[in-house]
């Protein structure tokens, strides 16, 4: 890794952020011969040096230690990677191409030009090969297998989601995550890109429609400036709009935050099923895209966390954590959120409003997920909302639906997008069909912010495919 010091740098293309959007942008442009500098707010953390899904990982690789919240009724807790490789270093590694119908909706609703599905799917092919996207070659984790069994028993559609992982031992663990620090970032660096970690961009300076300088804070808090010809903002769906707002760009930026809100439960089985460093790879897609079920990380700390809402009634179960696993129900939301950068504050204010339909869907989703768990053989199910009953039989599900209120639930999300939606319809889109901010000459956004709405599947494939498409287009024009 480069460790440049000093207070000023020059480059042809500045890429801000090194996650799924930034790393692919940097690699594509560096390989096309551009002089690229990548800046990353977090540190470079070698894989294997922290336990996946642990509190230590949250401390080192998540923004604000994982304690980030979109305020609302209810508030929605979210997490963002803040490290070299961004979210790809810390997420579940599940990979889903966008659906044809999703691409079509984006194309038509936002008037995205020159956005053929076959081009995107061809890029997906490349990505899948670069990241070794594959299913688990051997045994699945017990928690994943239980989810599969429950869905199969109800006759509900389900499948295994492939991951960008290699499996040296054949079975589910230990998988080797093919994240950005192992794939696209080394490619960018070996093609001459320079990477500055622990550098936070405070703002971009523009002269009329052209940005030319980034003002940063270095690792010791010292001021740094970087001058560039072009800039790609890839800081994620919260911090890309926040940076743009700090730099004086407003308009539609940050107004249409989309997420997949999720609610969760803990299921207790008769046998040990808890594994501490892996998540289930099966998902239940019977109600997709509106509603999907999957499994979450389930270390004992996370099991305790999921029981917190009803601690007095549910705490006795915690000693059985080896027999327990956490599962989630995720919805596509009609609601929208906002990211607002406020003067003088380091972080933006994030808000999100669920609609009535969203809240109803979360409730029926959680009850349906509990039904899957009963069918999977769960002895007890502990839904995560204040006042939830312990579910032991089907009749108890009527209490879940009766007592559920989204405002009493621990709602969280990991898929954030759509804060700088792309498209040529300037009444809806903040960036053009290739990610250039409307009204600017050389400010590009190239991350999850561009997705016009939430894709209903794990979004990393969509983010990478669109980022590579846009970077290639840029390289073709500016070669």
């Amino acid at each position, binding site marked *: 890794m480069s460790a440049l010091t000093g207070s000023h740098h020059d480059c042809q293309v500045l890429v801000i952020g090194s996650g799924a959007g930034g790393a692919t942008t940097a690699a594509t442009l560096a390989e096309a011969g551009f002089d690229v500098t990548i800046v990353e707010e977090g540190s470079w953390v070698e894989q294997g040096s922290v336990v996946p899904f642990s509190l230590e990982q949250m401390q080192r690789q998540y923004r*604000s230690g994982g*304690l980030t919240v979109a305020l609302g009724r209810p508030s929605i807790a979210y997490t963002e990677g803040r490290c070299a490789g961004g979210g790809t270093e810390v997420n579940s590694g599940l990979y889903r191409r966008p659906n044809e119908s999703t691409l079509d909706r984006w194309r038509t609703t936002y008037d995205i030009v020159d956005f053929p599905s076959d081009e995107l799917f061809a890029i997906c092919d490349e990505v899948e090969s670069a990241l070794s996207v594959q299913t688990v070659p051997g045994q699945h984790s017990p928690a994943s297998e239980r989810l599969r069994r429950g869905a199969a028993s109800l006759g509900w559609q389900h499948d295994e989601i492939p991951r960008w992982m290699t499996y040296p031992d054949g079975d589910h663990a230990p998988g080797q995550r093919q994240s950005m620090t192992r794939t696209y970032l080394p490619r960018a660096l070996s093609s001459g890109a320079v990477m500055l970690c622990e550098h936070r961009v405070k703002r971009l300076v523009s002269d009329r429609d052209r940005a030319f300088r980034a003002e940063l804070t270095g690792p010791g808090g010292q001021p740094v400036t970087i001058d560039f010809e072009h800039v790609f903002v890839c800081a994620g769906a919260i911090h890309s709009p926040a940076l743009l707002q700090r730099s004086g760009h407003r308009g539609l930026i940050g107004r249409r935050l989309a997420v997949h809100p999720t609610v969760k439960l803990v299921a207790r089985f008769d046998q040990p099923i808890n594994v501490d460093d892996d998540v289930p790879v099966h998902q239940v897609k019977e109600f997709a895209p509106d509603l999907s079920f999957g499994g979450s990380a389930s*270390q004992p*700390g996370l099991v*305790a966390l999921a029981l*917190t809402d009803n601690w007095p009634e549910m705490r006795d179960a*915690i000693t059985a954590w080896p027999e327990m696993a956490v599962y989630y129900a995720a919805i596509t939301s009609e609601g929208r959120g906002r990211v607002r950068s406020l003067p003088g504050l380091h972080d933006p204010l994030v808000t999100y409003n669920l609609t009535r339909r969203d809240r109803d869907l979360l409730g029926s989703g959680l009850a349906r997920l509990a039904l899957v768990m009963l069918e999977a053989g769960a002895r007890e199910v502990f839904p995560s909302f204040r006042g939830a009953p312990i579910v032991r039989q089907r009749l108890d599900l009527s209490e879940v639906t009766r007592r559920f209120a989204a405002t009493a639930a621990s709602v969280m999300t990991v898929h954030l997008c759509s804060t700088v939606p792309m498209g040529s319809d300037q009444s809806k889109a903040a960036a053009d069909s290739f990610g250039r901010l409307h009204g600017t000459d050389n400010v590009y956004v190239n991350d999850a912010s561009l997705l016009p709405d939430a894709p209903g599947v794990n979004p990393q494939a969509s983010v990478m495919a669109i980022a590579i498409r846009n970077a290639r287009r840029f390289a073709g024009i500016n070669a």
Partner: protein
Amino acid sequence: MIVPTSPLNIEGPFGRFADRLLALELPDLPQVYHDDTVAFICLRVAELPSPLKIGTSVLSYGVGLAQRVAGLDRTTEFLRSTHLPLLAELARMVRSLGFAFVWESWPQTLPSGLQGATAS
């Protein structure tokens, strides 16, 4: 007496509340573990994104006032059981961070905080 500079640090009203609440929820947690957990909670809260941190600080000033007027125990008991928006979040935050930390660090912990063997 040193006046704490932030209401969120371990000596301040938030720290006192976290300390008291955790003692009520996990009474048998060994003192060293208890102290580690409170320190962890305060560290994390100090790293909250700035808008949340400001909100929590403002609430904590109010909590500090209540602690002086109504006493630490009564204030803690109220915050522990209230469902009022925002105020309820304080206890929720302490519990979430605390329980996650305790069971990740010492998975054999019993519901009272006592250290024992886990079921298998």
